[in-house]
């Protein structure tokens, strides 16, 4: 018996991994002459202390729910989509084109159109790597890395030469028309009598993200397609023998993954900046990898891990402005790297001692089999 109880696998291992990551980060802070406890206090205050700070935390959380789901759904089919970053960038392009060039009568229509455009553009960017993976055997990790770089060059070109606001040197589109402004969380909560900061960028994309997470759960665990998808991820050969079409599954899952990454733009491009700027994704696609690994690819786990990384990102921002600490925002990147390392690559290292521990704790009579 070298199996862990389910609860240990789902809760204990991610928890130990994050504690290890935090512990090493604390050592790093000590090594560069900081005070880890002070840093932690500043980060918690920065992430949750005021309703405005909480609003920023929820805004980042929304980003990471989308990108985390994007990576997670691909993992179910044992496909490692590193391309969420590029797919999210393309989603931003879709949102920008729709918002800039279609005259909408109402924001709700603009939101629906932007939702469709973001998912289509994101999915399109994942389509070629997916096709090459099944039909030509090109490794999806490599092709999606290449497509990230190509997406960056493409957006750079478009923003500088084509859809640039001609009056400015800045590589960005013009501001979207006022009608495409989607409600902020404060616009929804304040009329209900719940006071919420009007300055934070958290917006209607958060409930949309939660709804999308629920839909992903529904599809992956409650439909025939989801069953095929998980079977394919468990064993491609077995799935093929069971009559599951590898081409169809790979295409569907990668298109869905790209679409989920693209949806990120609803929150960031439409909900916050209200124009498309260079490098709008800011690494959120990569944070999605950490979120998916930590959330064990389950939508509930992804939402919780996204909240953790949302809090880390916002807390890290505030920490970087704290004069007495002088710790740059890259601390979050270090934590992110360590979480990816411990939950993704060093999983076995975290798991082995636990397996032994549980074997010791188990009553002797039941280990006989």
């Amino acid at each position, binding site marked *: 018996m070298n199996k862990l109880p389910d609860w240990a696998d789902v809760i204990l291992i991610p928890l130990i991994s994050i504690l290890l990551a935090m512990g090493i980060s604390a050592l*790093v802070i000590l090594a*560069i*002459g*900081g005070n880890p406890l002070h840093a932690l206090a500043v980060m918690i205050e920065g992430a949750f202390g005021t309703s405005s700070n909480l609003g920023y935390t929820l805004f980042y959380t929304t980003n990471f729910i989308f990108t985390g789901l994007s990576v997670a759904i691909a993992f179910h089919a044992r496909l*490692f989509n*590193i391309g969420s970053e590029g797919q999210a960038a393309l989603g931003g392009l879709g949102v920008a084109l729709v918002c800039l060039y279609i005259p909408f009568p109402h924001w709700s229509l603009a939101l629906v159109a932007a939702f469709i455009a973001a998912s289509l553009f994101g999915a399109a960017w994942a389509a*070629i790597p997916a096709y*090459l993976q099944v039909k*030509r*055997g*090109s*490794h999806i*990790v*490599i*092709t999606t*890395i*290449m*497509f990230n*770089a*190509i997406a960056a*060059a*493409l957006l*750079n*070109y478009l923003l*500088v*030469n084509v859809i640039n606001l001609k009056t400015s040197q800045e590589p960005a589109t013009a501001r979207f028309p006022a009608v495409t402004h989607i409600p902020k969380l404060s616009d929804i909560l304040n009329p209900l009598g719940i006071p919420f900061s009007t300055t934070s960028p958290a917006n209607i994309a958060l409930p949309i993200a939660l709804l999308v997470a629920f839909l992903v759960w529904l599809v992956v665990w409650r439909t025939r397609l989801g069953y095929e998808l998980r079977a394919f991820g468990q064993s491609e050969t077995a799935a093929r023998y069971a009559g599951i079409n590898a081409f169809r599954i790979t295409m569907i899952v990668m298109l869905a993954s790209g679409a989920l990454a693209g949806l990120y733009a609803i929150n960031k491009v439409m909900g916050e900046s209200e124009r498309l700027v260079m490098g709008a994704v800011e690494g959120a696609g*990569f944070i999605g*990898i950490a979120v998916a*690994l930590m959330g064990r690819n389950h939508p509930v786990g992804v939402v919780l891990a996204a909240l953790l990384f949302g809090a880390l990102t916002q807390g890290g921002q505030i920490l970087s402005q704290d004069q007495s600490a*002088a*710790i*740059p925002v*890259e*601390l*979050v*990147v*270090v*934590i*992110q*790297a*360590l979480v*990816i*390392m411990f939950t*993704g*690559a*060093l*999983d*076995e*290292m975290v798991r082995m001692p636990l397996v032994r521990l549980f074997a010791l704790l188990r009553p002797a009579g039941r280990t006989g089999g």
Partner: protein
Amino acid sequence: MDFLTLVLILDSSLRLSTPLLLACLAGLFSERSGVFDIGLEGKMLAGAFVAAAVAYLTGSVWIGLFAAIIASVFMSVLHGLASITFRGNQLISGVAINFLAAGLTVLVSNALFHEGGRTPGLPPDARFPTINLPGALTRIPELRHADPMTLVWSKLLSGHTVIVPFALLLVPATWWLLYRTRFGLRLRAVGENPAAVDTAGVSVIRLRWIALLIGGVLCGIAGAYLSTAIQASFIKNMTADRGFMALAALIFAKWKPWNALWACLLFGFLQALETQTRAVNNLIGIALPSQFYNALPYVLTVVILAGFVGKSIAPKAGGEPYVKER
């Protein structure tokens, strides 16, 4: 476009190809042994920072280079622990290493120098000295009136740091090691069929560790070249996806040393064109945007990967941790 511009572009191609070539050969060793290495970017970045910081603090570029190699090898050891010893996912470990380097370099640099992630500019003594060949002209007005042979001699062949010929010589050295030694035979075999190597009584784990450590050394040199030869300081994220471009070159080269040289020279040439877009566009008569040259290496690699033009096939055991005696 005059001959001087052409020579300048070729000269800058050679400079830009050098870090790509070093990282590409690093990837070649690692992937030929069956370990995917997408952490080339992170190892180079760590090397670049440590080289610049140590060279600044000690005033010696050689100590800087040595420290860069140590830092990059440390990253390789992490990758080895995760992907060889604990049989974890090699791709995820590589991703983690890239982020670890991106974060740590800025944190430590800011703590040491308080310049928001930069290191202070290096004085000429703390950089790699350029080797000026005898009779080479160095001043621009002289170059403008020089004949073609003198131009090539003075600008293309002279004025490089020792890293450039070192990287070029590594190509035949790698070829010899890979195809003419026992170690090379075993290394190639372990990337294709580790079980066979194991049956022959050769340690798979040991071979993979050696390959990974060689890769660490080379990435460290590549990073040091960026921050102490091309530039005179470390800047946040200064590798700018060169690790991924080296990875692309490796695929383009079909995991072969001589091909790696040509692929890196081509990609370096495209990078050089990107900086000279106007001159090139005047020459070919089409107004191509600079981003075109930026994206071209990646597009070419995808085309090669797709197998439409000469299919590129990876070492068969790549990405799979080796489990002895199943």
